[in-house]
């Protein structure tokens, strides 16, 4: 009992201490970046710590840049609050509730699909408008008619990839490696296989890995090599793709590697030799090397802020804020409206408006919440993206 008492006491002490310093520190943080009255409160949650933190932090930085720009213009004002969900469904619910207590009026998140499935359920229930930058799972938008995505859905990418391979003569024998424990990767894989069958593609090798054993992908690459695949489809993120490319190079295996939007950012993986990605094809909505003014300015600001080149997560996040700003301006949304009223107005806007952003021009949304964007196929040549037909 004594022990227990000591423990409770210790924890209480620490908690009160933390609560004390937390209260003083959180004031500027919670209302970041400008705590002006009359700002519409945007909530975001994503993995800011843990294994998926790279995506959450990219989205956070992208959104912060957009909010700063919009606030600097005067007129419409946003306040952004980013909460950590650790890429975990349970923590996502807690992050959502924290945002709700803060007075969130619009949900500009979450970043990854699994937490989004939880948050979308809550948003539909509470009638808070949700626009996710990067949760591409097809199930996310099924929760309600106020859930919208700015990225393409996973099935679309799978279908588009299979169609691209069928219409362009990349190779005869196809191998696929995917992450069976990941919602994003297995979602693309399922639809890719269906469409590949419909297109009569010869898929000779299906290899998968899980989140627990993805540290060693040599077996899967060897399997594709043994099956004689000359095209290898890699529907997963750049981190693992870097491993696949490095090992394939070591064993002298040189098929055409084909990736999805998660592959974007491979050239910016620190320490990765861009020569290994030579000839890699991927479908992506955003290229940091694009020459237009908007992209250039965004990339420059992002690099100044974080020191790294933005990936498509950051660009999607940037677009989310601008799409919301456009919709809020059109609908005359002001900070004193209730979340439910804003929700109704934004649904109306999003199903009718057209938006031009970094990740695509002329985006429109269906009533289901799905965005219409055409994935752009690019190939890496001499270390830069080159668009292909």
């Amino acid at each position, binding site marked *: 009992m004594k022990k227990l008492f000591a423990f409770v006491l210790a924890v209480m002490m620490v908690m009160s201490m933390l609560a004390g310093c937390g209260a003083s520190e959180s004031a500027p943080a919670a209302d970041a970046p400008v705590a002006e009255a009359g700002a519409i409160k945007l909530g975001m949650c994503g993995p800011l*710590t*843990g*294994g998926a*933190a*790279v995506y*959450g*932090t990219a989205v956070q930085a992208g959104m912060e840049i957009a909010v700063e720009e919009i606030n600097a213009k005067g007129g419409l004002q946003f306040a952004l609050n980013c909460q950590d969900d650790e890429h975990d469904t349970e923590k996502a619910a807690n992050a959502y509730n924290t945002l709700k207590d803060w007075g969130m009026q619009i949900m500009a998140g979450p970043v990854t699909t699994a937490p989004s499935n939880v948050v979308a359920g809550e948003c539909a229930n509470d009638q808070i408008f949700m626009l996710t930058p990067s949760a591409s799972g097809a199930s996310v938008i099924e929760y309600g008619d106020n859930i919208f995505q700015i990225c393409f859905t996973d099935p679309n990418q799978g279908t588009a990839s299979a169609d691209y391979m069928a219409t362009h003569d990349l190779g005869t024998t196809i191998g696929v490696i995917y992450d*069976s424990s990941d919602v994003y990767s297995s979602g693309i894989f399922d639809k890719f296989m269906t469409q590949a069958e419909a297109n009569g593609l010869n898929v000779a090798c299906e*290899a*998968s*890995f*899980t989140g*627990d*054993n993805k*540290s*060693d*992908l*040599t*077996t*899967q690459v*060897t*399997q594709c090599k*043994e099956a004689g695949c000359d095209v290898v489809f890699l529907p997963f993120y750049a*981190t*693992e793709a*870097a*491993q696949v490319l*490095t090992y394939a190079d*070591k*064993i*002298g295996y040189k098929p055409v590697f084909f990736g999805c939007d998660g592959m974007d950012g491979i050239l910016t*993986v*620190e*320490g*990765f*030799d861009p020569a290994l990605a030579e000839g890699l094809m991927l479908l992506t909505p955003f290229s940091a090397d694009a020459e237009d003014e908007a992209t250039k300015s965004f990339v420059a600001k992002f690099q100044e802020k974080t020191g*790294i080149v933005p990936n498509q997560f950051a660009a999607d996040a940037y677009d989310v804020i601008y799409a919301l700003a456009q919709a809020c301006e059109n609908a005359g949304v002001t900070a004193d409206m209730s979340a439910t009223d804003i929700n109704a107005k934004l649904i109306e806007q999003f199903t009718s408006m057209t938006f031009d952003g970094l990740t695509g021009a002329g985006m429109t949304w269906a009533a289901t919440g799905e965005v219409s964007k055409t994935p752009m196929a690019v190939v890496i040549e001499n270390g830069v993206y080159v668009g292909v037909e």
Partner: protein
Amino acid sequence: MSFLQYLINGISIGAVYAIIALGYTMVYGIAKMLNFAHGDVIMVGAYVSYCVTSYLGMPAIVSILVAVVACTVLGIVIEGLAYKPLRGTPSLAVLITAIGVSYFLQNAAQLIFGSAPKNFKSIVTMQPLTLFGGGLTITGEVIITIAICVAIMVGLTLFTSKTRMGKAMRAVSEDRAAAQLMGINVNQTISLTFAIGSALAAVAGVLLCSTVPTLMPTTGAMPGIRAFTAAVFGGIGSIPGAMLGGILLGIIETFSKAYISTQFSDAIVFSVLIIILLVKPAGLLGKQIQEKV
């Protein structure tokens, strides 16, 4: 031919597991604690090596030495601050503290190095060997990893059987109280074990990331658990057991991925472990200790 390729891949990753498992097994044998922070020391070692080569432009061999020194110091500091005060308390208390240390190292690494994964440049510059006209490729990493693994095992075996300190270690692991009565400084011996274990972790970190280039704050976690499994597999506390366990685990993992199912390979690996433990409850090379009443 593919069979040989898989076998070599398996031995390669298995050798890395083996080096990590050696650290686990030594610490367990002597301090009787499951040091769950061991996997994160590996990650620290890899980051140190990465920084030395990428930011300071030093050669690979220097980076390994710096990583070994850094991890040894880290190991001694962790042991002194977090584990030493808990000596003599139930092993579970130390286990939870080790988990706290593991969380601490992972989150500290994220704060310092950021969450974006880094691509670790292999320290091995050896060209891959190509046999059978391209049918079989043995990369330089495989050869170096296996060589280092064998060297470490031989070195440790000689150390524990020939030197004074090594003998003291064995004595402490067999009976701490009796060893103390014989004039062995138990605390010093345990600190030394942690130092050696952490130095091995640094080497393992560099080799792991040379084989599998992704480096991020959670890099050490899963290989750490695998290696722990490997240590138990071979008989925890036994040095050759850790080596055998690690390599077997690597081979089983690769074969189950290659020939049975990539999706269920985790389940298969752990099932094999369970079966082995049921047949030989103390692991492959572990000693079955009879309890005295």
